[in-house]
C-alpha cells in the first residue's frame, strides 16, 4: 500500500543558520493518526510546514504520491489541510463564511459551490450559526472550530493540527476531541497535551533537536521520555501563604 506521506532524509536550515531538521525519515499511512511530540523548538512545526511546501528543505517529501514541487503545490495543498496554532492568523477574512469559503474558491469552485461547501463544513463543526460573524467576536474555541471548518471545506485527505488544544478550556478540549474522532482523515497532531493525543492516536514520534529519535506506540514513548502529564503531588501546606519569604 502506497504510504500517504513519505519523507526521506529531510534537512532544513533557517536563514539565520539554525539547523531545524537534520535528516528526518517518516511515513504515514491512510487513516493513521500520529502524535508528534517533542520539546519546544525541536522541529515539529518546521517539519509539518514542509509537507505542504510552505517551507522547502532538502530531501524527498511525497504526499499522496506527489512529490512536493512547485507544480504540485496546488494539488498537495488540497490534499493536506492544516490547522495552525494561532487561529487569529488563520481566520483572516472579514466574516466566518468568507473565510471558510476561501479554500474552496482557491480550488476553483464557483462562489455558489464554495458557499455550499462552506456551510456544510460549518455544520460539521457545529458553527453554522456564526456564518455572518466577524472572527474577532468569536471565542478561542469557536475560532478553532471555524479554522477546522475552513480546512474541512477543501475536503482534504490528511489533517495536520498544530497544538490544537492551545487556549481551549477543558470543555473546549473535549468538544474538539469528539469532533476529531468523527473525522475519517489521516491525522498528524503536534501537541504537548499527551493525554489528548493518546485519546486520538495510537502511534507517536518523538522529535529531538531536528531528529526523530523514536517512533512507536504512544504510551511507550510517553513513558520512555517522561512525557506524560503525571498526576501532580498533593498541595504541600508547608508552602502556604503564611510562610514568609
Amino acid at each position: 500500500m502506497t504510504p500517504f506521506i513519505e519523507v526521506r532524509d529531510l534537512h532544513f536550515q533557517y536563514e539565520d543558520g539554525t539547523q531545524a531538521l537534520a535528516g528526518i525519515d517518516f511515513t504515514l499511512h491512510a487513516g493513521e493518526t500520529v502524535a508528534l511530540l517533542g520539546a519546544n523548538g525541536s522541529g515539529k512545526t518546521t517539519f509539518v510546514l514542509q509537507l505542504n511546501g510552505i517551507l522547502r528543505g532538502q530531501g524527498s517529501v511525497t504526499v499522496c504520491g506527489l512529490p512536493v514541487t512547485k507544480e504540485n503545490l496546488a494539488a498537495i495543498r488540497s490534499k493536506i489541510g492544516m490547522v495552525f496554532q494561532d487561529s487569529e492568523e488563520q481566520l483572516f477574512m472579514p466574516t466566518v463564511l468568507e473565510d471558510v469559503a476561501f479554500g474552496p474558491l482557491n480550488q476553483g469552485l464557483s462562489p455558489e459551490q464554495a458557499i455550499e461547501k462552506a456551510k456544510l463544513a460549518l455544520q460539521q463543526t457545529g458553527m453554522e450559526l456564526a456564518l455572518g460573524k466577524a472572527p474577532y467576536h468569536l471565542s478561542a474555541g469557536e475560532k478553532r472550530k471555524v479554522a477546522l471548518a475552513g480546512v474541512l471545506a477543501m475536503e482534504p485527505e490528511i489533517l495536520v493540527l498544530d497544538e490544537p488544544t492551545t487556549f481551549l478550556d477543558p470543555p473546549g478540549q473535549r468538544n474538539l476531541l469528539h469532533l476529531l474522532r468523527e473525522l475519517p482523515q489521516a491525522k498528524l497532531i503536534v501537541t504537548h497535551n499527551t493525554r489528548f493525543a493518546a485519546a486520538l492516536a495510537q502511534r507517536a514520534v518523538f522529535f529531538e533537536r531536528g531528529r526523530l529519535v523514536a517512533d512507536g506506540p504512544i504510551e511507550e514513548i510517553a513513558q520512555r521520555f517522561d512525557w506524560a502529564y503525571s498526576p501532580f503531588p498533593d498541595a504541600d501546606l508547608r508552602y502556604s501563604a503564611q510562610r514568609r519569604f
Partner: protein
Amino acid sequence: MHHVLVDQWSQGASPLHARDPRAKVMVLLIFLVALATTAPDAAVTLTIDAALLVAGILIAGLPPGGLLLRAMAILPFSLTFGLISWLAGDRLRAIGLAEKSYLSTAAVLLLVGTTPLPRLLSGLESMGCPRLLVLLAQFLYRYLFVISEQAQHLRLAAACREGRARKNRRSKFRAAAGALAVLFARSYYRAEGIHQAMLARAFAGRFATLNPLRFRATDGLFTAALAVLLILARLP
C-alpha cells in the same frame, strides 16, 4: 471602543441596512456636497437635512441619542474655529461651521452604522476604488482591534513595571520606542503567519470575490428619491 460600537450598529437588519452600499454612498455624497454648498443661514435647507437624518436614524433602528451624541465629537474642533470667526465678526460663518459640521458627522455615522465595513468596501470597489486599496482596508480593519489590544497590553505591562522610581524622560522615551518596535515585529510576524495560512489553503495570488452586490430597483428608487429631495431642499 468606538468602532466596535459602530460595528455592532452595522449588523442590524432594517430597510436602510438592506440597501445596496453603493446607493447609500451616492446619497451620502449628494448630501455632503449639498450641505457644503448651502449658505449658513438657509434654515429651511438645514432643517430638511436634519429631519432626513433623524428619519434615517429611526428607520435604521439605531439609538438616536447614542448616534447624535457621538456626532458631537466634532463640536470641540468646529466650535473653536467658530468662536474665532464669531469674534472676527463673521457670525454667520461661525454658526454655519457648527451646524454643518455636526450634520456632516451625523450623516457619515449613519452610513457606517447601517453598512458593515467589508460590504461598504465592496461597494466602493465596484464604484471604481482600486482593488489593492480595498483589500488593504479589509485587512487593516480585520486586525485593527487585535493589534490595538496588543498595544494596550504593552502599555499596561510597561506601566506595571514603572514603579515609584522616577525614571528619566530619556529612558521612558526609549522604552516606548522599544514597545513600538516590539509591536511592529509582532505585527510583521503575524502577517507572515497569515501568509502561511493563505498558502496552506491553496492561495494562488488573487483573492476571489464571494458576495457580488446586486443593485436592485428598490436601491435605484431610494437613491433617486433622496437625490431629488436633497436637491430640492437645496434650491431656496
